[in-house]
């Protein structure tokens, strides 16, 4: 799934966005970049932050997948909220 009609919003790290937010991924940095890219989480993809996990991570939903990222991982994914 890629962003089609999105309302421009300032980009933020996923760790700083509330659960339930849909985010159009802007960039992925750090050591998780390669792995997330292979899993399909790359710039342009819209992900939904489902909820917070134990330890401060996030559970993400996109393209039918459910991906758990730790708190550190959520600080490596940047995106803009979309409606």
């Amino acid at each position, binding site marked *: *799934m890629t962003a089609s009609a999105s309302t421009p919003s300032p980009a933020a790290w996923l760790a700083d966005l509330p659960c339930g937010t849909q985010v159009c991924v802007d960039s992925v940095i*750090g*050591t*998780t970049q*390669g*792995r*997330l*890219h*292979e*899993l*399909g989480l*790359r710039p342009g993809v819209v992900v939904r932050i*489902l*909820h*917070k*996990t*134990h*330890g*401060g*991570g996030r*559970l993400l*939903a*996109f*393209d*039918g*997948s*459910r*991906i*758990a*990222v*730790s*708190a*550190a*991982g959520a600080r*490596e994914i940047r995106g803009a909220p979309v409606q």
Partner: protein
Amino acid sequence: MTSTSPLRKTTAPACHGPAEQAPADAGTPRIALLGSPNSGKSTLFNLLTGAGSTVGNWPGTTVAVGRGRWQVGGTDVEVLDLPGAYSLQARSPDEELTRDLVAADGAAPPSVCVVVTDAAHLTRSLYLVAQLREQPLRVIVALTMVDVVRRRGGRLDPAALAVAIDCPVVVTDPRARQGAAALAAAVSTALDSAVPQPRINRGADDLSRADDRFTWIQSALVAADGTLDDSPTLSDRIDRVLTAPFLGMGAFLAVMWLVFQITTKVAAPLQGALDAFFSGPVSRGGSWLLGALGLGGTWVESLVVDGLIAGVGMLLTFVPLMTIMFALLAVLEDSGYLARAAVVTDRLMRRLGLPGQAFLPLVVGFGCNVPAIAATRILPHARQRLLVTLLVPFTSCSARLTVYLLLAATFFPAHAGTVVFAMYLASLVLVVGVGMLLRRTLWRAMPNEPLVLALPPYQRPTWWVTSTVTWRRLRGFLQTAGGIIVATVIVVWVLQAIPVGATGSFGHVAPRDSVYGAVAQGLAPLFDPAGFGGWEIVSTLFVGFVAKEAVISSWAQTYAVAQPTSVSDPGSLGHHLIDSFTAASGGHAAAAVAAFLVFLLAYTPCVATLAAQKREVGLRWTLAGLVLQLGVAWVLAVVVFQIGRLLT
């Protein structure tokens, strides 16, 4: 796709040992099964190869690879169940092995690559297919979870997908044991076909090549009419509880408690019954039979009854424990919960540089180290498995508890409970301490990336998957560990049977006058700095090496007293122990016992643990672990005694 070709399961040849496996026979087609972790790849492997398959380390590595035989269209083929990988961009030794074994320009490229592809996560799953299609390889997609897509209101046309990606697509459901015949037909056809032309990737670097693949995947999904309703599912609602802050940890601890209770409490009576059966009717039957043959009372009877039957009996007492442990692991894996447990415990275990899954084997280790080492298989990477395998022996198993209780009741009767609690606390400190030490030395290079884990949807565990996985793992354990356990028990018997000097004859000699006693006397000075350098004490360390359960009975035998009926009431054995520890420590018995308890905690738990380690990480690392355990145990015992001596 359908097939009418016969499909017959055959067993792996005997040369395929479970620990390290020989290369494939030249000329035998090799089918590589690939797929992301939790894709159902191993379930498909079990379906194709049946009970005869084996899982063992690939030669020269500690990476486990499943191997089995499968007959397709009248041809025997070898099937390899490769480690799970999201892509061929290797980020661990396991993924490196997968990449190397499917490399088209490698030493032995597979005849056909079967990629287990999850229809519910097609974009992600097809990435590996895209990479393989860029090599001159025959690729077949085994499409799973098509029913899940349709149940969730999605659509997918497998035939159109096959055209779009230019390779056969076979719909399978390994958990329901469906699709094997169609897959056999597809493999048979592929083996008779020329290797297709690779797809050209026009990307200039890794990221642009990945983008090229995703563009290819998107166009294939459009052609295959692939849609999926991505609204919240039941799994999402369950995850809201099972991975939630605090609630998730509570649920995880409850599951661990249940696993611990079942593996120890349920298995204990079964172990006791088997032990009683072997030490009772079987031993008596053996004695009667040998008596009838005129060998009663001879060393032959002692060898058969106290060596062979005792060894086999000891091995078989592990069967209920291991069966329960393997079955529980299979259920947790098959249900999808283990992936959630990894998420919940990730932050805690990262401090040791380990993923969250490492918590499970370490918890199980407090029940018994043997199934705990087998449980390290849930860890995704070989180096993580190796590290945890070396740490598990430092978890205080229940067999050590009886010795703690006996010594605490003998030397610290007013504080016995506190002493036992302190031993468990010391065990935790030891696991964390040794873990951090190894992490900062030998394991410095191990990457510690933030957690990124694809969670499979929850599913109800099936009897077939649970029983197949349990049986395969149990059989592997018995094949590898059985010989070591029985051989060690017999070796100890032989050492105890051979007299030194003129006292006694073979099989009829007091422990002190046997080779066993002589070796203990020779090694006793090594333990003088730890305050327990008496041969009666040191000799039990040998027996404890075989099994900690035998330590108390060995002391009773050495002192020629009755074994206490309860560890909280040591009786005359307690008096002998006080005398021995007091004499060996020069009057600092309390410090010496504390040192002995620490040594008992830290040194090799039992020969069965060593056998399990050898199976998982090979002989070299097992020996390295043995040296580590003995070294840590000796140093800590000396430190405890020397400090304790100053305080008492």
